[in-house]
C-alpha cells in the first residue's frame, strides 16, 4: 500500500483542487493519527469507554417527561391525555365504520349479546368491487390480477384477517396522504416552517418504529387506533417531502400564469400548483400505501389485528407454515393495492373523454355496476350463507407444505448450512465485531467529524461530531458499534451483490425486465417476511440477521445503479463509441464514472434499508441497539426505547449526511451539478 499512497500523495500535492480524487494528504494524516491513537492511546481509558459518571441521563429525562405528559400536563380545560384520547376517538369512528362494512357487520349491543343489524359486505361483493376498480383504472389485465389477489385471500382462508388489515389501511392511507399533503404545502409556503419540519421528518424516518410504539401505546391506549397513529408517523414523511418537492418543481410559468389571471393565494395552491404537480404527488400516494402495509405487522404489536397479528403470532409459535401463509397474504394485498393505486396515478394523468350528451347510466357504468353487485350479494347473502362467508370446506391451506419443505431442507442440508454459517461467523463476523468494539469513541467521532469537514464543511463536521458524541454520552456506544458492524457488513455484501446486478441489468434490456419484477416484489414484502425462512434455516443469531438484512437492502443498490447508468447522457456514450472505445471502456470510463453520484445515493438508501431491517432482526436475537429498543418495548420503558432509537436515528443521519455530501461533491466534480 505504501508505494501507491506516496504516489497519490504527490499527485494531490500538485493538483490545485483540495480533496482530489484519491486520498489526499490531510486524509492520510488523519488516518495515521487515528490508527496511532487507537494503538497507543491506551493510557486515556476514558477515550475508549465513555465514563459512566459523565453520562447524560437522557433516559431518565425522557421517562420523566413522558410521565409528566400523561399525569399532569394540562391545557387548563382539559389534560394532555384527554387530548390524545380525543384524537384516538376521532380516528376510531371512521375505522369502526369501515371495519363493520368489511369484516364485523353492523352490530347492536356488546359482546356475545350483540345482534347483527346489517351484515358486512360479502366476499363476493368485495372481490367484484375491487375487480371493477381494476377494470376502471387499468383494463382487463389489471382486473384479472386484482381478482386473483383477492380470490387468493378467500381461498387460503385469510379473508377475515385481510379485511381487518384492509380496513386499517383504508383509514391510515387517506389520513397519511391528506396530512402529508397539508404539511408539504405548508413547508412549501413558509420556508421557516420547512426549516423546523425537516429535522423532525429526518427523525421520523430514521427512528426505528419500535422506539415510538411505547409512547404511542401510553398516549393512545392499546388498539387499532394506536396502530393507525404509529402507521401515520411512519408513512407520512415521504408524502410531505414529495409534496414540498413537487410543488417546488412546478415550472415558474404556472406561478406566473396563476398571478396573471389574478388567483388568490388559496386559488394558486389548490387550482394551479397542486393540479400541475399531480403526477409527482401520486408517487407519494403510492408510497404512503406501501409504507402503511409495511407497518402492518409491527402495528399489530400495539393492537392492530388482522394479517399482521397472524404473522406475529405464528412467528412466536415458530409455526413457519402459518406465518408464511399470512405473510404471503400481506404481500398479495400489497401487490393488489400497489398496482391499483399506480394505475389510478397513470389514469389521472391521461386524458379522458366524457360526452355531455350521454345519459347518467352511460356516464357511470362502474358506479352502477358496483351498486348492483352490492345489492345483489346482500340479498343473496340472506338466503345463501356461502355468499356471505367463503365456505370453510373450500379453503385450502399450504402451511403444512411450507413446514415440510423447511424440515426437509434442514434434515438433508443441516450440516452444510451449519458449516457455511460457522465459517462466515468465525472468519468474518466475529473478528470484525471485535475490531469495531475496540475502537476509541473519541477517535471515531473525531475521524467522522474530519470526514464531514472534508466533504461538506464545518457545519457538517459539527453535526456529525455532535451526533456521534451524543451516542457515546448517552451510554449507547457499545451497542452502536454492534449496529454499525452488522449494518456495515450487510451493506457491503448487498452492494457487492446489487451493484454488479445493476450494471448487468442496465446493459441488457430483457434481464432488467425480469430483475425489475423481482425487486418490485421484494419491495412490497413487509420486512418481517424476510426473517421467517432465514430463521427456519439458520435459527437465531447474527448470521440470520445478516442474511435478512442483505436480502432486504439489496433492492436500492440494484435500482439506483440501473437508474444512474440509464441517466448517463447518450451523447457521451455516442462520443465514446466514435472515439473507438470498447464496450468495457465505455462502461468503466464513461458510464460508471458519470453514474457515481447516483450509485452513492443508492448506497445511502441501502444503508437506510439495512438500518430499518436491523431493528426488526432484534427479534432473532442480535445484541445491538435494535435489541435495546425491543427490550424497552417489551418492558414499556419509554426513555430506554427512545434513547436507543435516537441512537439508531443518529447513525442513519450521520451516514446519510456524509454520503449525500460526497455525492454532491462528486456531482460538482463531474460537472453534472
Amino acid at each position, binding site marked *: 500500500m505504501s508505494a501507491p499512497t506516496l504516489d497519490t500523495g504527490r499527485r494531490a500535492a500538485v493538483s490545485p483542487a483540495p480533496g482530489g480524487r484519491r486520498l489526499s494528504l490531510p486524509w492520510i494524516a488523519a488516518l495515521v493519527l487515528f490508527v496511532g491513537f487507537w494503538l497507543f492511546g491506551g493510557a486515556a481509558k476514558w477515550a475508549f469507554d465513555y465514563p459512566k459518571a459523565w453520562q447524560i441521563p437522557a433516559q431518565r429525562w425522557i421517562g420523566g417527561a413522558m410521565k409528566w405528559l400523561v399525569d399532569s400536563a394540562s391545557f387548563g380545560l382539559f389534560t394532555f391525555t384527554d387530548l390524545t384520547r380525543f384524537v384516538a376517538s376521532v380516528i376510531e369512528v371512521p375505522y369502526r365504520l369501515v371495519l363493520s362494512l368489511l369484516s364485523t357487520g353492523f352490530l347492536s349491543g356488546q359482546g356475545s349479546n350483540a345482534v347483527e343489524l346489517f351484515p358486512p359486505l360479502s366476499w363476493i361483493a368485495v372481490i367484484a368491487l375491487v375487480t371493477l376498480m381494476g377494470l376502471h383504472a387499468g383494463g382487463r389485465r389489471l382486473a384479472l390480477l386484482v381478482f386473483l389477489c383477492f380470490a387468493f385471500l378467500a381461498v387460503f382462508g385469510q379473508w377475515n384477517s385481510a379485511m381487518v388489515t384492509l380496513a386499517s389501511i383504508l383509514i391510515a392511507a387517506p389520513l397519511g396522504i391528506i396530512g402529508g399533503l397539508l404539511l408539504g404545502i405548508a413547508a412549501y409556503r413558509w420556508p421557516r416552517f420547512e426549516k423546523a419540519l425537516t429535522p423532525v421528518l429526518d427523525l421520523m424516518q430514521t427512528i426505528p418504529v419500535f422506539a415510538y410504539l411505547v409512547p404511542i401505546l401510553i398516549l393512545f391506549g392499546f388498539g387499532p387506533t394506536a396502530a393507525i397513529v404509529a402507521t401515520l408517523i411512519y408513512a407520512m414523511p415521504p408524502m410531505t417531502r414529495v409534496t414540498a418537492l413537487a410543488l417546488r418543481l412546478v415550472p415558474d410559468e404556472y406561478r*406566473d400564469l396563476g398571478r396573471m389571471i*389574478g388567483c388568490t393565494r388559496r386559488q394558486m395552491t389548490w387550482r394551479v400548483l397542486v393540479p*400541475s404537480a399531480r403526477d409527482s404527488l401520486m408517487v407519494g400516494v403510492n408510497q404512503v400505501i406501501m409504507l402503511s402495509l409495511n407497518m402492518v405487522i409491527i402495528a399489530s404489536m400495539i393492537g392492530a389485528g388482522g394479517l399482521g397479528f397472524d404473522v406475529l403470532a405464528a412467528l412466536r409459535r415458530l409455526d413457519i407454515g402459518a406465518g408464511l401463509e399470512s405473510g404471503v397474504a400481506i404481500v398479495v394485498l400489497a401487490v393488489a393495492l400497489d398496482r391499483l393505486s399506480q394505475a389510478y396515478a397513470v389514469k389521472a394523468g391521461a386524458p379522458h373523454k366524457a360526452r355531455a350528451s350521454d345519459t347518467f347510466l352511460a356516464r357511470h357504468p362502474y358506479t352502477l355496476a358496483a351498486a348492483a353487485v352490492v345489492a345483489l350479494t346482500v340479498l343473496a347473502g340472506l338466503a345463501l350463507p356461502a355468499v356471505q362467508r367463503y365456505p370453510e370446506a373450500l379453503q385450502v391451506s399450504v402451511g403444512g407444505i411450507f413446514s415440510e419443505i423447511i424440515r426437509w431442507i434442514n434434515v438433508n442440508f443441516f450440516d452444510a448450512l451449519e458449516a457455511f454459517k460457522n465459517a462466515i461467523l468465525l472468519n468474518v463476523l466475529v473478528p470484525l465485531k471485535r475490531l469495531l468494539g475496540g475502537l476509541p469513541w473519541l477517535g471515531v467521532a473525531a475521524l467522522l467529524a474530519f470526514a464531514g469537514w472534508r466533504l461538506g464543511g464545518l457545519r457538517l463536521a459539527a453535526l456529525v461530531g455532535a451526533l456521534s458524541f451524543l451516542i457515546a454520552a448517552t451510554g449507547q456506544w457499545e451497542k452502536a458499534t454492534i449496529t454499525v458492524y452488522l449494518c456495515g457488513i450487510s451493506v457491503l455484501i448487498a452492494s457487492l451483490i446489487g451493484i454488479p446486478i445493476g450494471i448487468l441489468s442496465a446493459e441488457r434490456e430483457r434481464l432488467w425486465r425480469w430483475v425489475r419484477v423481482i425487486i418490485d416484489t421484494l419491495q412490497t414484502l413487509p420486512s418481517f417476511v424476510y426473517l421467517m425462512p432465514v430463521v427456519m434455516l439458520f435459527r437465531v443469531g447474527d448470521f440470520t440477521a445478516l442474511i435478512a438484512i442483505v436480502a432486504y437492502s439489496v433492492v436500492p443498490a440494484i435500482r439506483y445503479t440501473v437508474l444512474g447508468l440509464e441517466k448517463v447522457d447518450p451523447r457521451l456514450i455516442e462520443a465514446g463509441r466514435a472515439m473507438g472505445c470498447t464496450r468495457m471502456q465505455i462502461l468503466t470510463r464513461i458510464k460508471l464514472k458519470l453514474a457515481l453520484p447516483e450509485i452513492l445515493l443508492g448506497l445511502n438508501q441501502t444503508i437506510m434499508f439495512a438500518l430499518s431491517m436491523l431493528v426488526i432482526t432484534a427479534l432473532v436475537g442480535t445484541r445491538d441497539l435494535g435489541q435495546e429498543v425491543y427490550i424497552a418495548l417489551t418492558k414499556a420503558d419509554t426513555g430506554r426505547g427512545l434513547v436507543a432509537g435516537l441512537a439508531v436515528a443518529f447513525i442513519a443521519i450521520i451516514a446519510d449526511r456524509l454520503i449525500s455530501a460526497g455525492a454532491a461533491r462528486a456531482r460538482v466534480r463531474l460537472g453534472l451539478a
Partner: protein
Amino acid sequence: MAVSTSKLVCRNVWKIFGTGAREFLDDAGTQADIGALRRNGLVGAVRNVNLEVREGEIFVIMGLSGSGKSTLVRCLSRLVEPTAGEILFNGENLLAASEARMIEIRRHQMGMVFQHFALMPHMTVLANVAFPLDVQGMGREAREARARRMIELVGLSDKEGFFPRELSGGQQQRVGIARSLAVEPELWFLDEPFSALDPLIRREMQDEFMRLQSVLKKTIVFITHDFDEAIRLADRIAIMKDGAIVQAGTPEDIVLNPADSYVAEFTRNVARSKVVRTASLMRSLDGGAQQDITATVSARATIAEAAPLFSGTVDRMRVIDRDGSAVGILDRAAVVELMMQG
C-alpha cells in the same frame, strides 16, 4: 396607426437582484453601472428603463437571453417587484397598488401568453380557456360561452374537448392565446410566444397573430429574442442589452440608423427593402398633384411590397396616405437602388 394616448408608461424602472439592492440604488442613483453593481455582488436585471406603450400598438421588446427582457415584462405586470421606478397603467401607478387592486387589474385588464404555454395538463382545451374566468368566479354557462368564442377565434373549435398533450405545439399556443384573450384584456403581454415552435409553424403563428391583431386592436407588449420576428410584427421596437434599453424606435428607424455597433450587428443582415417604407424613399410632389401618374401605393407599404407594382410601363407611383391624398412620388430608380443594396 394614429398617434394616441399612452397605455403603459414606465419611468426609471430598476430591478436589481441581491441583498442590499435598495440601499445600493439609493446611494448610487441613476449612475449605477454594471461594474459597480457587480462589485457589490448584485445583478442588475433591469436598469433605468423608460418606455411608453401607446394604445393599440404592438410594442416589441427584443433582446438576447439574459438581457433582462423577461424580467422587464414581469416588472410591467408586477409579477416581479421592481426595485425602483414608476409604472403607470392608464395613468395609475401599479407599484402603489394594493395586492387586492393588482388582482383586480390582472383579472380584468391584462392577459399574458407564455413561452412554454403553461396549459393545465388535467383540463380540456375548453376548461383551460375558461380557467381565468373560473378563477374570477364567473358562472359555468357564461364562461364556457365566452371560452368557446375565443377558441373559435383562434380556429380550434373542433379541438374543444381535447387535452393539451393531444395537441401540437402550435395548437397548444393557440389555446394559450385564446386563454389570455378570454378576460378581454386591454393590455396583452406575449412572452416569447413562438420561440418554442418550429420555424415553419412560427411563421404561420406570426401571420395568425397579425390577423388577430387586425381584428382585436389590443395594446401589445411582445417579447422576443428573434430580430426578424421583431421587425415583422412591431410598430415600435425596444432593444435591450444587459438590462438597459439601447435603442427604441420603429423598425425602419432602427435598421436605417442603428444607435451603436451592438444594434448594427442585428440589422446588418436585414433586407432594407423589407423595412423601409415608401414614405421614406419618396420624393416631394414638386408642387403639382401629378395627376398624370395613375399608379398609387400606400405610404405605409414597405419597398419590398411596393416593388412588384412597378410592372412593365410604370416608372413612377403616387404615394398616398390613409385618406387617399398624395404625399409624394416614388421612382422606379430609387426602388431599384435600394433593392440592390439588399
